[in-house]
């Protein structure tokens, strides 16, 4: 009897916590459908009397289809390039006998402890010297090269594959490339799910790098276009339009997060522990 009461109280507490943490996001969704005057009525209504879909049309004129396409090119470019360079590297470190394995591992791990914002300026300079400002190469390649997380994640996974299977394939005359392609990659689906979700969300949500490297209209990504809508009181753009823009920016992330939740959270927890 007492434990039932305790469970009820706990449920209530969990519900309140969920509501408080999700409140800003609920506010975003409901605010994006309200008129400029209704967003200010008090007490606030969860759902507007009549949803104002015009907010989304207005937000679309600031964000534009081109900007959204840029965001997809940027995020998917980083995910794809990181896969191409880190899968073979990780496989070599895990399974191929090599004199320098330990040295390569050490050189990958040590710089992981330097927060990205501290190398922003020199990384910008390298990109600038390469003549890559305002280009997709400049947006994607320097970020894809930050691949230590990917290499270590896949290496750990490949290392856990049974050695006998790979030995057998090698004795049958399969090349290392063939072993990676036909055994390593097909067996590493959980690691792929973790990597792709973490990498995509990280890239999609990047703000400072695209802002610094490619602010021009042809290469502008969503977050760069969205940030000026956080104008607050001095902005000429109504908050409801900004919130509609935020909803548009959240849709892809939300889909990836919900579909890949299990793997994503495992990956994020791993990053923290690495």
């Amino acid at each position, binding site marked *: 009897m007492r434990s039932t009461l305790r469970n009820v109280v706990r449920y209530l507490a969990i519900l309140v916590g969920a509501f408080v943490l999700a409140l800003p996001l609920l506010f975003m969704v409901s605010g994006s459908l309200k008129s400029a005057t209704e*967003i200010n009525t008090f007490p606030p209504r969860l759902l507007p009397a009549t949803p104002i879909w015009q907010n989304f049309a207005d937000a679309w004129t600031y964000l534009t289809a081109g900007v959204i396409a840029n965001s997809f090119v940027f995020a998917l470019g980083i995910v794809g390039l990181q896969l191409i360079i880190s899968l073979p590297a990780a496989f070599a470190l895990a399974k191929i006998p090599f004199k320098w394995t330990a040295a390569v591992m050490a050189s990958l791990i040590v710089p992981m402890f*330097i927060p990205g914002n501290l190398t922003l300026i020199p990384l910008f300079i390298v990109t600038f010297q390469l003549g890559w400002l305002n280009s997709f190469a400049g947006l994607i390649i320097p970020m894809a090269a930050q691949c230590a997380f990917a290499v270590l994640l896949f290496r750990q996974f490949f290392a856990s594959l049974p050695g006998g299977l790979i*030995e057998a394939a090698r004795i049958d005359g399969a090349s290392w490339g063939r072993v990676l392609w036909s055994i390593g990659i097909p067996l590493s689906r959980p690691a792929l799910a973790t990597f792709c979700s973490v990498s995509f969300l990280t890239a999609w949500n990047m703000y400072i790098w695209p802002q610094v490297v490619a602010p021009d209209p042809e290469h502008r990504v969503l977050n760069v276009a969205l940030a000026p809508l956080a104008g607050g009181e001095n902005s000429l753009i109504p908050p409801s339009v900004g919130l509609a823009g935020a909803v548009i920016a959240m849709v892809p992330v939300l889909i990836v997060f919900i579909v890949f939740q299990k793997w994503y959270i495992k990956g994020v927890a791993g990053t923290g522990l690495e």
Partner: protein
Amino acid sequence: MTTSSTTPRAAVSRGSRAGRSSGRRRTTRVDTVTATAFLTPAMIGFILFVIIPALGGLALSFFEWDLFSPPRFVGLDNVVRLFTDPDMWQALGVTGLFVVMGVIPTVVIGFLLAVLINARLPGVSVLRVFYFAPMIASAAVASVIWAALYDPRYGLVNQVLSWFGVDGPAWLSDTTWARPALVIMMIWGALPIVIILYLGGLQRVSDDIYAAASLDGAGAWRQLWSMTWPNVWPTTLLVTVLQAVGFVSGSFEVSLIMTNGGPLGTTQSLALYAYKVAFSDRDIGYASALSLFQLVLMGAIVVLVRALIRIRKASSR
């Protein structure tokens, strides 16, 4: 960073062990050639965009450079300037306040929420999604939402305050309130990862100790503080370091978008100051020195936490 300081070593030894186990057969030339080929693309990218910027940042601290004219070696001038620059001292103070105001509430609230949702009750796993959701909002998305929430006349925050007869400030343009406003927003964004790491830590705490404590008649709160909290201590240290680093370096996107460091520099952290020196003043050398100074500060935090661990270990013995 308890685990992080040991992980590299552990990972390296694991790596070489894996190398040895598959190397029962002797390493052949094919192995060496293939391994080199497999590693080359990643290593080229890594050297060009990780190693060179890291070393270059260090070197640039000793130069004066505006990106276009040839860089000029100035020795320790940038370092001297660092310590005599009032803007740097203000930014350092702001960074310190961000850390102090942000880290402790994030860790404590994150711990309590993790304990709360670490329940084997039906439906809780679905509700957990709401606890993790703030994590997927980018700095720009979060800024749009919170700028609307903090709007002085119509924002939800001031509307709720007016309910209680409180006349809320113009949060983001008030020298007293801009900083706490940003800190609250950053705590909201930081809680999910803290909760996730604590959930991992809680799973490693054995159920037996609670059974024993219940038999001894310890109440729920007493169990929480004298059993759960000490048992997740390694997670607490890790989370504290991660969040300290997060509030030092990660806070700057938010302040850049929301307040641009204002009003009167009250939300201008070191990272944002370095960003402005680099990209508005184009003073690359001094900006590099500022970044380097931050790295030293963060190293100091890690050393401090490790010292704390040692003291704790010594006292528990």
